[in-house]
């Protein structure tokens, strides 16, 4: 154990003097998180509330009814009816400018057309840059039109069911009953879910930290191959220490570099970017598990690679490949396809899942699956690496 710590402290001194560990471990993740945050910060945040305009050119009650339906949805905070232009042209202009995502216009004579069975259309003009908001506007209009159609169909069905024997006065009474309210058959029961997603400042700090963690820990384990190339490994093996102490020393370097860089990143991103890492105990557990997993996977590469250059390249490929798969740069694991399951092959994914659960305010115990997932990677990595070292020795 003393030998391991001695080797580790020597390597750590080397890494502190060589600036590359600082660049990869701290400057790169912090810099990129800052840039991503800057670029994306203004885009995706905030509640999604589509902005519409309504123009009621109709003189009758049906048009009024529709406006009040819109106002009701507006009052619920789900949409924002921001403008009430006086003409179709003005409404179209607002939609074209993008002042509103969609302009809804009820044409003149709409009520009359509804009551007399004539033809008329609610006009929805949407801005092409807001397809989703446009779809919402069309849906609201379509829902209202469906309601009118249902009332008309109800009257007609009632009249036909009666054998066509109803007098105009009786039909009027049926129509009145229909407009007073139709039986509800299908209702939509609305449930609110929690938000289980990191805000951007936290997501990029977390994703960049775990992405570069894999590069940072590779400095430690790759030290083994450097000693081998420089010929100092044989000298170490000649000393009265167990060969596994040397491996442990190198792993310790990775562990210390990983924990230190992650700690600096967590503190720095909280202060500089306003990242919210959540419960310290939970984050601590995730970081330790993440560092152990990263070291384990990189140790596998170190166990099989022949030269430090080859190991460095393979480690970079593994770190980039797993990071990409785990949703570091853009979300993966969406939907139900094969790719969504593939994302779980990445330790990065497990780390981010754990972070997300913490951010949702779940109890610290909610990260147990994520920590378990990370430790599974660690166990596999360490298992393979140690088996390889046991069977062939570390000197090659």
């Amino acid at each position: 154990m003393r030998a391991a710590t001695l080797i580790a402290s020597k390597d750590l001194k080397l890494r502190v003097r060589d600036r590359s560990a600082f660049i990869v471990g701290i400057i790169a993740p912090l810099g990129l998180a800052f840039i991503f945050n800057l670029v994306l910060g203004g885009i995706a945040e905030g509640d999604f509330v589509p902005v519409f305009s309504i123009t009621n050119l109709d003189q009758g009650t049906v048009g009024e009814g529709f406006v009040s339906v819109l106002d009701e949805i507006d009052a619920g905070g789900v949409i924002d009816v921001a403008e009430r232009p006086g003409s179709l042209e003005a409404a179209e202009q607002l939609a074209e400018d993008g002042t509103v995502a969609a302009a809804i216009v009820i044409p003149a004579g709409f009520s009359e057309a509804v009551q007399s069975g004539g033809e008329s259309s609610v006009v929805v003009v949407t801005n092409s840059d807001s397809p989703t908001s446009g779809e919402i506007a069309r849906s609201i209009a379509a829902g209202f039109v469906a309601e009118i159609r249902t009332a008309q169909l109800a009257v007609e069905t009632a009249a036909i069911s009666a054998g066509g024997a109803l007098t105009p006065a009786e039909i009027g009474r049926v129509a009145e009953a229909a407009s007073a309210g139709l039986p509800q058959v299908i209702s939509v029961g609305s449930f609110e879910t929690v938000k289980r997603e990191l805000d951007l400042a936290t997501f990029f700090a977390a994703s960049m930290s775990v992405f570069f963690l894999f590069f940072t820990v590779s400095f430690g384990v790759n030290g083994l191959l450097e000693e081998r190339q420089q010929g100092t490994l044989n000298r170490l093996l000649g000393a009265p220490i167990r060969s596994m102490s040397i491996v442990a020393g190198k792993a310790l370097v990775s562990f210390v570099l990983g924990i230190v860089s992650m700690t600096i990143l967590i503190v720095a991103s909280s202060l500089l970017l306003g990242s919210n890492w959540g419960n310290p105990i939970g984050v601590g557990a995730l970081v330790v598990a993440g560092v152990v997993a990263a070291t384990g996977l990189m140790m596998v590469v170190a166990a099989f690679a022949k030269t430090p250059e080859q190991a460095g390249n393979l480690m970079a490929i593994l770190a980039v490949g797993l990071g990409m798969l785990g949703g570091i740069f853009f979300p993966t694991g969406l939907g139900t396809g094969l790719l969504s399951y593939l994302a779980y092959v990445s330790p990065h994914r497990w780390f981010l899942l754990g972070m997300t659960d913490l951010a949702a305010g779940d109890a610290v115990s909610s990260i147990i699956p994520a920590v378990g997932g990370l430790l599974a990677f660690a166990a596999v990595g360490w298992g393979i690496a140690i088996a390889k070292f046991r069977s062939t020795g570390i000197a090659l």
Partner: protein
Amino acid sequence: MKALTIAYVALIRLVRDRSNIFFVFILPIAIIVLIGAQFGGGFAAKLGVVVESGAGELGDSLAQSLAMSEDVEVLMFDSEGAAVDAVERGNAQAAVVIPADYDTSIRNGEPVTVGFYSRPDNQVFQTVVQSAVADQSAVIRAARFAVDNQGAVFDEALVIASNNSDGVTGIAVEATTIGESALPPDIGQFDLGASSQLVLFMFLTGLTGSAAIIETRRLGVASRMLSTPTTAGTVVGGEGLGRFAVVMVQGLYILFATLLLFQVNWGNPLGAALVMIAFGAVCAGAAMLMGTLLRNDEQAAGVGVILGIGLAALGGCMIPLEFFSDTMQKVAHITPHAWALDAFAVLVRDDGTVADILPELAVLTVYAAVVITIAGFRLRRSMSTV
């Protein structure tokens, strides 16, 4: 001639380094595939739908009517838990659960509730579901009304209502879309990722390749070249050409691979070639400059990744420039990436010709001239030093 030989050596070194097979040839295509798979359907809102077993014909038809819209993409989930989880994690904007007793309840005239799940910050999709439900329930509600109002038999009334449902009214919704869309609907599944990854990787590969220049100095290759009857200008020119060749190999590879594998539209061929050459010159200059500024290859790799990815993100390679705020759009155009992407956008989306991208080409050329001049000057001085 000697300059060409030096450049040729740079290419050989690119291909001989086996990790480059991954970073130069596999990774960009893998990213384009991943992005295409995730966002190929555009940035349509995603609605999770669960049709519980037993929801029957009516349940299926409600799910279908939800899937009718182009701007809302339906993701089918097997269980309520999976759908709710997707909503919580932001993978779907909302989820709809059509219950097992949906069909039977409606046919028996019993009220039924469709579950709608959304996050507090995104509740608006309820309107989409309500509209689809209103559409489907029209016939059933009309029939129930006839039963309540005229004492009709439900099954008979249902037949009457459905027979008459098409011709019942002239009231409709007339929907039009105006304005120029940032992302045209006919954009190919892989088109969005292709040009941005081309730009990102040309620059990134250029910068990380600057380690080769550092190596050339450290190993004394530069000094040895200078000891032969070769002028410093030729050596610098050769190194510059070498960087340019590496960057162009990266660019041409992505261009042809995406063209052949995914039929990505690159627009006017001459225009695309000119953008690539101008941007390639910028990348080569940047690589040369970095090669003179840094001391060892590990630093070059680290700084190369930060600058390569950072500038790309800033320049609109990760999220399309159209989504940037006005201020950020201005900031983005500090990077050459944004100009190259603008040029590709004109070529691809507006079917532009070379004449239409002259401003972008001019900016890129000025960029290249400035960077290459500075880099060439520095490289010439630093060639023989370690």
